[in-house]
């Protein structure tokens, strides 16, 4: 009896001790990683060469921010982030062409116009950083011949259209990015049409995408296509419009865009989207870290070529309620 009583006392004493000790404790550790030059270069066929040059920071650094003490916010200090004094050299097909000059907002530009079929290289030297460089081939453009759009039926409270892209694909392996701007739209390839296999699409759920004029590359869809001979292709798609306040019969000018992009570009966009969807890596141990695609030697970022074709398309709005 006495022993049992003692044991109970012991238990009641030890349990709170256990609970007190059984807690999570943070431990600070150091992580070292040298900052690098970051190159962002999207080279469009027929446009002047332009690249954005900035620098990276150690993950623990906060020096690139100006703190707004009043509101506790963070503003990017562009004086630190952009490498205005960097030496940026431009090469075409292995030959030096020019030194690029700083414009604004981190951008350097040259006089040279980018052309399809050529390979470009940018080399960036900045004090305190390893030399960084990137190489890109400007792909042959895909020609967008025409487009059709037909009102089909209502889909919940949205307006639902079926459309077709008619375009020509040159020989080779292509990653094609389709988008439509002008209204708030979601577009989705409608099955495997004319041997085109839908492989990449930014966004798991189409209803969360938006294609609007401010962000021509947000949303839309990507396909992968390989051919030995030039092909005329018809691609069916579904278009869902929402959020607009047009009246039935109103006309809007839409801009359909098809871009021929390299695989690097697809990898970048896909990784960025995964990154965004996964919370950006801070604060949740259950989130899977997402690796953002990088194709810069000695640095970070993306350097890639694109060719695009645009088609303007008058769109007559049909209000399902009328």
């Amino acid at each position, binding site marked *: 009896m006495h022993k049992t009583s003692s044991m109970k006392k012991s238990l009641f004493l030890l*349990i709170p001790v256990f609970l007190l000790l059984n807690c999570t404790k943070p431990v600070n550790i150091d992580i070292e990683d040298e900052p690098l030059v970051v190159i962002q270069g999207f080279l469009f066929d027929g446009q002047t060469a332009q690249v*954005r040059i900035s620098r990276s920071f150690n993950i623990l650094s906060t020096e690139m921010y100006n703190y707004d003490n009043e509101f506790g916010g963070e503003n990017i200090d562009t004086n630190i982030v952009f490498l205005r004094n960097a030496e940026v050299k431009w090469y075409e097909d292995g030959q030096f062409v020019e030194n690029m000059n700083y414009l604004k907002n981190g951008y350097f530009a040259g006089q040279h116009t980018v052309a399809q079929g050529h390979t470009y290289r940018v080399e960036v030297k900045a004090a305190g950083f390893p030399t960084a460089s990137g190489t890109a081939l400007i792909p042959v453009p895909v020609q967008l011949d025409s487009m059709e759009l037909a009102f089909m039926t209502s889909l919940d409270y949205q307006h639902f259209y079926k459309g077709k892209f008619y375009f020509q694909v040159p020989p080779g392996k292509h990653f094609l990015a389709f988008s439509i701007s002008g209204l708030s739209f979601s577009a989705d390839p409608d099955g495997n049409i004319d041997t085109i296999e839908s492989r990449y699409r930014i966004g798991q759920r189409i209803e969360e995408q938006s294609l609007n004029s401010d962000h021509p590359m947000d949303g839309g869809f990507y396909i992968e296509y390989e051919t030995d001979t030039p092909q005329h292709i018809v691609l069916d798609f579904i278009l869902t419009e929402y959020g607009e306040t047009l009246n039935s019969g109103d006309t809007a000018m839409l801009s359909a865009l098809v871009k021929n992009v390299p695989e690097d570009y697809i990898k970048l966009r896909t990784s960025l989207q995964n990154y965004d969807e996964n919370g950006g890596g801070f604060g949740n141990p259950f989130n899977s870290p997402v690796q953002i695609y990088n194709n810069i030697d000695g640095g970070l970022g993306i350097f890639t070529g694109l060719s695009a074709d645009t088609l303007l398309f008058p769109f007559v709005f049909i209000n399902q309620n009328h």
Partner: protein
Amino acid sequence: MKNTLILFGLVLCFPALWGQSFTINGYVEEANSGEKLIGANIFNTINLEGTITNDYGYYSLTQKAGTVELRYSFVGYRTKTVRFQLNRDTTINVALEKDIVLDEVVITDSKIQDKVEETQMSITRMPMKLVKSLPVLMGEVDVIKAIQLLPGVQSGTEGGSGVYVRGGGPDENLVLLDGVPVYNVNHLFGFFSIFHGDAINSVKIIKGGFPARYGGRLSSVLDVRMKEGNMKEVHGEGSIGLIAAKFTIEGPVKKDTSSFIISARRTYIDILLQPFIMAISKANGGGRTNAGYYFYDLNAKFNYKFSGRSRLYVSGYFGRDKMYLYNKFDEDKLKSNLHWGNATFVSRYNYIINKKLFLNLRGSYSQYSNTFYNFFSSIYDSHSESFSFDQNSQIRDLALTLDFDYLPQPKHYIRFGVSETYHTFVPQVARFTMNVDDVDTTISRGFDNIYAHELNAYIEDDYKISKKLKINAGVHLSGFAVQQQFYKSAQARLSARYMISPKLSFKASYAQMSQYIHLLTSSHFSLPTDIWVPVTAQTKPMSSEQYAAGLFYNYDEDWIFSVEGYYKKMHNVIAFKEGANYFKLWEFQDWQEMLTSGEGWTYGVEFFAKKSFGKISGWLGYTLAWANRRFNGTDPLNFGEIFPYKYDRRHDIGIALQYRFNENVDMGGVWVFGSGYPATLYTQQMLYPNDETGDTYDYFVNYFDHTNNFRLPVYHRLDLGINFHKKTKWGERTWKLGTYNTYNRLNPTFMIPMRNWDTGKREIRQFSLFPIIPYIAYAFKF
């Protein structure tokens, strides 16, 4: 393969070719309880031929007519010798008595020389006596935690009962309880295992060189056998610890004919804390609150001896974990609970068809399920509303197995059998119900059930070619029918042992394995909501080939030293796609969309030294290993490049020691050391390359150059415990005292970058779970 089958056919059909011989057979059991002794040694001292008892204590030895002197031995028991003239088939059932003198100083373990001589490599039989004496987390005896101390076996996160064998994943281990697969061996998020030490008879783990009778997983087989129950008299044992109490009782139903064992365990921390939770809730104006967590296990087994030739075993396990929360505040009610657990049931029938052929027929049911339920109701302005959400996932198996042991002569031990398992997978089903002013709205969502048939057949022969060379050759055939798809595989198994000297052997093995089910897991912790899913038309079976070789040395009949090297290649291993994780399951229309498949390589060297006798006993294990993965298919990870597996641990040391001061006091110690596991940490920040126009807003994104680019700090921990035993009038009592993590090492569980809002700076923080944790427990036995 065809030739192998023909050879086995010949072996089975023409035993008479081996000449005029007679067979001695029977059971070897413990004298006091009638408990069958698994792996007992039977040895003819005249011609040096012998065999061992199988998993049911049965043996069969065919000898030429003449004088035979059989020596029956099992470590910890007095050896018994029987000498007689063999002139006809003879049955000898032997009961071995515990060696009281030896028992005081040894750990119950099989004979050292047997380990050197057996064909099987990469196997460890866990001595339960030592397991019980080791210090453990919160005083709960845990077989899994003891296994984690072995070379080649790693734990996952701090304190967890996860088992990662030779670079394999947590779902690549076949865990058998009385021959029935168990799908979740964890309680309390993996901090405890479901195995109740007092109810366990034997535990063995096989990491490679798998005999053909095992199949279905790539990396290991953990075979746990429950006690059968004392055939002679009633006994009981139990303990009361910091968080749990348990009790086991066993005894004869009819002496020497039938017996039972019932074992139960329950945690009671919820009961102890309940008054505090209610008081705190009330003091803070939170209404009436009741919250807690508990788990319980129930093991039961019954066996009945129909005759000397046939015997029936019926056993079951039922265990549940439950978390609950109830709150009532004015007219608002909240009720929430999460419960999960296993249920297994198995009925086995042993029959000695003839003296050389032993049959085991097994019918079994295994289920694992988890359920989450949440309910909220409220009344305001005479309106009532309520919301409920319940979610369930489970896996159910119905299986029928037929195994044969055939011992035509001492040189051959043939096993063959077939099995069929009907799997039902309920990946996840959820229902949301809303009731507003007595109007019900219900939305259901979930993945479709999947039904599958798994077929297995095997044949193997443990063949002693010469005194020096012995092999175990076999083939395991398996098939899996699911979604109009039938996957099949033929897996070759071969192990060989060569005696370099009487005390030193060389062993080598090759094993092909296939696996048809996967576990979708959160990866950081063992969550009860982890989901078992099968291969489908889209997700292919995993497979592996493992090569292993090693040396085994018996020193002074007390020490065994072994060194093993292995190389394992795995195909179709699965992982979450980049950006997907367990907690995004609901965002996918189909769970298969979340997965990507790739390949893995793992290789390493394991050193093991074990001392089984004397005042001090225990083992030391060291592993040097590498484990890598590559996913370079349609949905690549790490952009298709090779990266270290998340449980790639370069150095791993486990030491378990027991020191017996006298018959009243013994002490146990465990020290573990492991290199840091890989982890992925963002190392750089850069401006978001938002689009090609450059006109959009800027913000920073985080970057790392490759998956698992960082190593967590090393893990090490010392646990110490002391046990005070005392004989009493009614039996024996033991006080157990000890500490887990004795020197209070803050070991890493995970790291994440965070902003310290006090300093405004960013920092990487390591989170640790368990500091020093003392324990005390009272155990008794009668």
